[in-house]
């Protein structure tokens, strides 16, 4: 078994970069590491780059992008990079000098142009790079920890600088496609230095966080490989939430133990040489400074006397009945990574197909594992939005269009613009619209990517919508129809999936806020993997299951009773097991 992850015994570099699938405990681990190092007397800066960050919940105070000292932990400063606010500030800084000098309609035109998701990404990366390359920060702190956004997004951020510098150096007609990134040239050095620092093993350690489960371990492998390709070779793996089986004799605990051990025995090959540590499963909720401080040290049991608001917890069947009765055509399962969106999406698809509906089940998750969960047939069609493939398709479509009227050399010119990092965003967006457009003759169930990324996508939907209304370009019908359809509560339902724990519930609440802002309907919530729904007798797991009650009550309240609970299962829920879920 792996050694305990304890920064008291491990020598760590100046920059620590925590990454992994959503819901694996990146924030808890990063916070616990930060507190442990600060308790040793080191000066520590902890930075979150997650658009859906929950650092403020952990520390119980509002955080800023500049950094806030934590009273209870001397030596620790915490900063929260909010990409949307950063984008707003960036936009403001570009536009402010021209207010009053140009008419309002012109200012508005500029603002719209600067509202794309590309600006958000750029602003986020800007701040992130500044933290990595700032000399003052480097001198001031012994350790700088980054709690990053879900993997897909992080990787994109890291790849951006190389994409950009290639783009700039290859561009023969000036960086025309970077119109909205006018400050980019001057930032080139900063980005380059950020990537150099990340790739320097003496300076930076990449800490891959996973749970002892199949899919987060696969995700860790993917991140590990892709980051190695970017030169980030100094890597550690931390497996969080490992059940240490000692005297307990309980069916659920045994099942959990063997499930975890099997996942660890089958750890992806390329991770086997990575130094690996474990953090034991704790009975307590990992929130609040006291518990975070304990996380890397010891467990304790604290019996709570919580009471459920409802006597009987509703099941997924109720959700499916309602989706069917209300004739929904576009159904999303949204939520943090690792909460079971794919499982639920598959269960909904099966439930509706059983009622005789034609269902198209699709995913935008880069770590797509839909096909491992459910088979095609019996009224269900599967597909996925592959970002790279969409980019290729889009590029080809543009070039085909260009070839109708243009000479070969002109096409080379267009190809140059197509290498802009923004193009991928557009390509995915179009694919997304295409699928939703198909909801005319089939029900579309969409298993979306982790929260942060999804939000960017929705944001893009909104800002493009404005642009579409006045563009003379050739806009596909599907794109025109997208936002009105998403906003039509008669057609669209977003089912928010969460776990009965603090962080996933807080994140889900933020997601709900974002959906409200975008004018998109959400009625249903699903709580997955509830130990309370099992009859575990293990003291540790029983304590954990009691701790679920306040979170189940909270969801009940927010969802106004429109929620369902799925019990924790010892095995992967797939194939026939999905049918049990909807009975």
């Amino acid at each position: 078994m792996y050694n305990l992850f304890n920064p008291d015994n491990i020598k760590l570099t100046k920059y620590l970069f925590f990454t992994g699938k959503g819901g694996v405990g990146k924030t808890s681990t990063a916070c616990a590491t930060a507190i442990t190092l600060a308790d040793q007397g080191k000066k520590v800066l902890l930075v979150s780059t997650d658009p859906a960050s929950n650092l403020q919940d952990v520390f119980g105070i509002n955080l800023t992008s500049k950094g806030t000292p934590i009273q209870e932990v001397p030596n620790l400063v915490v900063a929260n990079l909010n990409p949307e606010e950063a984008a707003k500030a960036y936009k403001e800084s570009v536009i402010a000098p021209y207010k009053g000098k140009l008419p309002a309609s012109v200012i508005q035109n500029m603002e719209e142009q600067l509202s794309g998701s590309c600006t958000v990404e750029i602003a986020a990366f800007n701040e992130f790079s500044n933290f990595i390359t700032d000399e003052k920060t480097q001198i001031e702190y012994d350790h700088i920890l980054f709690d990053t956004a879900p993997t897909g997004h992080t990787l994109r951020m890291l790849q951006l600088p190389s994409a950009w510098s290639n783009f700039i150096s290859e561009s023969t007609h000036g960086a025309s496609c970077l119109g909205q990134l006018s400050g980019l040239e001057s930032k080139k050095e900063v980005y380059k230095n950020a990537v150099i620092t990340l790739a320097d093993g003496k300076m930076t350690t990449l800490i891959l966080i996973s749970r002892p489960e199949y899919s987060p371990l696969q995700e860790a492998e993917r991140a590990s490989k892709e980051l190695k390709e970017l030169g980030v070779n100094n890597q550690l793996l931390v497996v969080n939430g490992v059940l240490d089986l000692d005297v307990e004799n309980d069916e659920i605990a045994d099942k959990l133990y063997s499930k975890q051990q099997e996942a660890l025995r089958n750890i992806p090959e390329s991770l086997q040489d990575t130094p690996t540590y474990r953090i034991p499963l704790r009975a307590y909720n990992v929130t609040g400074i006291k518990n975070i401080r304990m996380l890397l040290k010891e467990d304790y049991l604290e019996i709570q006397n919580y009471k459920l608001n409802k006597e009987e917890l509703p099941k997924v069947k109720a959700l499916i009945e309602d989706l069917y009765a209300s004739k929904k055509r576009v159904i999303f399962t949204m939520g943090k990574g690792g909460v079971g969106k794919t499982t639920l999406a598959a269960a909904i698809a099966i439930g509706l197909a059983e009622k005789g509906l034609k269902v198209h089940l699709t995913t935008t998750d880069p770590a797509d594992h839909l096909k491992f969960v459910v088979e095609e047939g019996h009224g269900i069609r599967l597909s996925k939005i592959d970002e790279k493939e969409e980019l290729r398709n889009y590029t080809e479509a543009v070039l085909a269009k260009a070839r109708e009227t243009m000479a070969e050399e002109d096409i080379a010119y267009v190809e140059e613009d197509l290498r802009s990092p923004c193009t991928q965003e557009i390509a995915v967006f179009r694919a997304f619209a295409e699928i939703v457009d198909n909801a005319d003759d089939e029900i579309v169930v969409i298993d979306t990517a982790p929260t942060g990324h999804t939000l960017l996508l929705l944001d893009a939907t909104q800002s493009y919508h404005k642009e579409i209304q006045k563009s003379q370009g050739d806009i596909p019908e599907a794109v025109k129809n997208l936002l009105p359809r998403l906003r039509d509560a008669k057609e669209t339902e977003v089912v928010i999936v969460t776990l009965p724990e603090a962080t996933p519930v807080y994140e889900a609440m933020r997601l709900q806020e974002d959906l409200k802002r975008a004018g998109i309907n959400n009625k249903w919530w699903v709580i997955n993997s509830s130990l309370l729904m099992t009859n575990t007798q293990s003291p540790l797991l029983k304590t954990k299951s009691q701790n679920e009650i306040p979170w189940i009550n909270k969801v009940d309240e927010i969802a106004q009773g429109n929620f369902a609970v799925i019990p924790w299962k010892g095995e992967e829920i797939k194939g026939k097991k999905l049918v049990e879920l909807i009975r």
Partner: protein
Amino acid sequence: MSKIEIFDPAMCCATGICGPGIDQELLRVATTVNALTKKGVDIIRYGLSSEPQAFIDNKKVNDYLMKEEVEVLPITIVDGEVVKTRKYPTEDEFAQWSGVSKEEIAAAATEKENGCCCEGGCC
């Protein structure tokens, strides 16, 4: 030779391919401008979101914007005089103002440039 200036509305890029759809008109203008530049024509484009200062510094452009709002863009200026608003120049107009014939523009567009444009040496 005349100096041609084009003041674009705010957009992601000169070819417009970063936008929500493919705009043939923008593709045409972008490649024509590219070809004219190669022929040594003094032609320049200003983007509203990337170079807003240019829209203030040029008094004529600024006057138009103040009077007719953002819809007046694009504005084309030849030797300091506004020659066209609300629409991009046609190929005939480009030829007339630049003194480069349409055939020459087309030829310049297909002419190979020096150096390699991609890592794989594909060109």
